[in-house]
């Protein structure tokens, strides 16, 4: 800033300024070109579909004929539909299983790997399902969870009784979907937690050790509180991700499971839109999901003040 002011007072400064303005103009254009792929992608694949979805939520449209406005009728119909209400309960149930269990397991594994030599190999192993297509993962699990599959074979060998119908018994289908979801997302949270653990200032840990804190005390009183921002971030992401569960349900259950036992909100959106050709109803369900996600995230942000500790 000082240099610019100094230049302004010297002869020929106007020319310099004009030159600089030209540079800046060209820079602005170049910058726009560089960010345009993102902007175009965001507009076409996020903003435009959101706007269209918002409009369709108040209309009746089958994708083939003219749309007609129906006001709030789609929302009323969805909220009165027991299948949709079941899908909300299933979605919440899935989140209540997969988020705490998935995060707890990830944290345990991250703590175990924190001081381990050759942890890169383990990390690759845990991260492999994250890199694998969820369709491929679901297809493999579909075979594992068959009534006569290897899981039930092992079950009957160990316990001497036939295993449950993971994908055919309404009491077990959501659990089966949860197991696959946890397994396939474990690696990502392990990496995040491990990065968080390794980011903790070692002098704090050393001070605790000098003060006589054992490993358990250090974990509960130092490492976990300092890791809480990372846990919070992972929880928010995991909840949003579990609210968007579709592919595992689609592959494992084909139609949301017996008696809609594993039908999630996103599966319901797909079913309304692409099986029943009711895009208005599907869009209304999307908006309800958005509101649900916003409310739950807002609650999490509110709780953050009480439970999350920042090192500073």
């Amino acid at each position, binding site marked *: 800033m000082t240099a610019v002011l100094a230049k302004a007072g010297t002869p020929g400064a106007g020319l310099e300024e004009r030159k600089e303005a030209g540079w800046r103009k060209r820079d602005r254009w170049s910058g726009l070109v560089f960010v345009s792929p993102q902007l175009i992608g965001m507009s076409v694949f996020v903003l435009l579909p959101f706007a269209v979805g918002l409009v369709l939520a108040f209309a009746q449209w089958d994708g083939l004929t003219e749309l007609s406005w129906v006001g709030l009728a789609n929302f009323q119909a969805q909220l009165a539909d027991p299948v949709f209400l079941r899908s909300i309960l299933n979605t919440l149930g899935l989140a209540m299983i997969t988020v705490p269990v998935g995060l707890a397991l990830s944290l345990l594994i991250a703590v175990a790997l924190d001081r381990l030599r050759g942890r890169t190999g383990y990390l690759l192993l845990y991260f492999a399902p994250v890199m694998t297509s969820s369709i491929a993962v679901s297809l493999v699990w579909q075979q594992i969870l068959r009534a006569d599959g290897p899981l039930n074979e092992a079950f009957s060998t160990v316990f001497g009784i036939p295993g449950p119908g993971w994908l055919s018994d309404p009491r077990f289908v959501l659990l089966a979907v949860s197991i696959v979801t946890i397994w396939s997302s474990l690696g990502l949270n392990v990496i995040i937690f491990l990065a968080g653990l390794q980011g903790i200032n070692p002098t704090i840990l050393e001070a605790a050790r000098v003060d006589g804190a054992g490993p358990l005390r250090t974990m509960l009183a130092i490492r976990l509180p300092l890791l809480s921002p990372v846990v919070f971030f992972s929880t928010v992401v995991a909840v949003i991700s579990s609210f968007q569960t579709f592919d595992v349900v689609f592959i494992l259950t084909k139609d949301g499971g017996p008696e809609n036992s594993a039908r999630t909100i996103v599966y319901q959106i797909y*079913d309304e839109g692409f099986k029943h050709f009711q895009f208005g109803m599907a869009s209304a369900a999307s908006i309800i999901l958005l509101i649900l996600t916003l409310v739950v995230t807002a609650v999490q942000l509110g709780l953050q003040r009480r439970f999350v500790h920042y090192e500073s």
Partner: protein
Amino acid sequence: MNSITFSRRNFVAGALGVGALLATSACGGSAGGNSASQITWSTWGTPEEGQRFKTFNTAFKADNPSINATLQMVPSYSDYHSKLLTQLTSGTAPDVFYVGDDYLGKFVSAGVLMDLTPVVSGPDAKVTLADFNEALFGAGKTDKGIFALPNDCNPDVFWFDKKALAAAGITENPAELAAAGNWTIETFLAMCAKLAANGMTGAIFWNYWSTHWSWVTANGGEVFDSAGKFVLPQDPKSVAAIASLADAFANKSFTVADTLPDGSGADSLFVSHKAGFYVQGRYGIATAEQSGNKDDYDIAPWPTVSGKPGSSGVAASYLVINAKTKAPKTASTFVGEFLSSKGQTLRLADGGNAVPSVKGADSVVLGGNYPAHAKSFLDMTHTGFEDFSKEASVPGLSSDVSKAMLSMYQGKASAGDTIAAVSTLIEKAV
């Protein structure tokens, strides 16, 4: 060696150029083929069926060297119509495509299909309207025109296992009883009870519209009246039929194929002589062949109250032309040849999995002399009925009704509750 200077200006200009190129290429979607002699057509099917379609394509190309017909196959029936809908909405649907009977009504009423009347009329028509079995048009024929023609069909027949029946002490042959006009529901239920008493499954049914409604009509009931009103709940015979269906599933005489566990599914039960009857179409030939001795199996029509032949469900798929095709003449040529007696023979001969929808191709069904009473396939096609237009006109309704029926088949809902649930579904949708 010359060096190339890659300045920022060059980069920006290049990036804009590539962007413009990508943008214009992305906007290049069109309805199917891009010239009058090029068309695309789509269907669902297994790899084996795909092979038959490729054989047809090759023969079509030989007869019409100037036409290129490109096949787009979708493996799963349940995903096929979702894809088709997005293609139609975005203007990239094929020129010619298959439509399932449970989605046909919607596509017809939406006006996205071309009127096929010219295809089946005129001196040059490869196939005429009179060649088709009238009962198979279903929702494809309206007072505004003919918008879909049946590719082929599959009447649900009662495949029976002679060995299983004998093991249960049943000496009568259902096919012979039917031929004599004595194939009654009472006899059939008695046979199923004997089979169940001997530790076998009486009859296996697939959970879809043909099963529910064929049982109602076999019992003399009515599902929809001629005006398209769902009258089943008001018809005492229909209500009694649904109740007897619920009873048969409850006492394990009947089993629903869809919910049998992996590894011991319907085919396994039937080929291992653990079930007396298996209700399915001509594709049952493949099931019988799996047993190693297909002569253990034969077919009979649906039993009726009187024992005389009745009317039962015939599943069909339809061929249609996209109303926005840029090659209507070429598409019409393709449809004419695909549905002609020659085309259907090419697709369905030698153990094919369906029954032709036109006259003049009966040899496809009768030629191999298998099963022994193969003529029942043709008889039942002529007397059968397609999925009711009202049901077929609402996408997903047929599968919603079947889901409601499944609860009853699994013993989780009573006949009365199921009828009420189905009534609500149909009233709400229609």
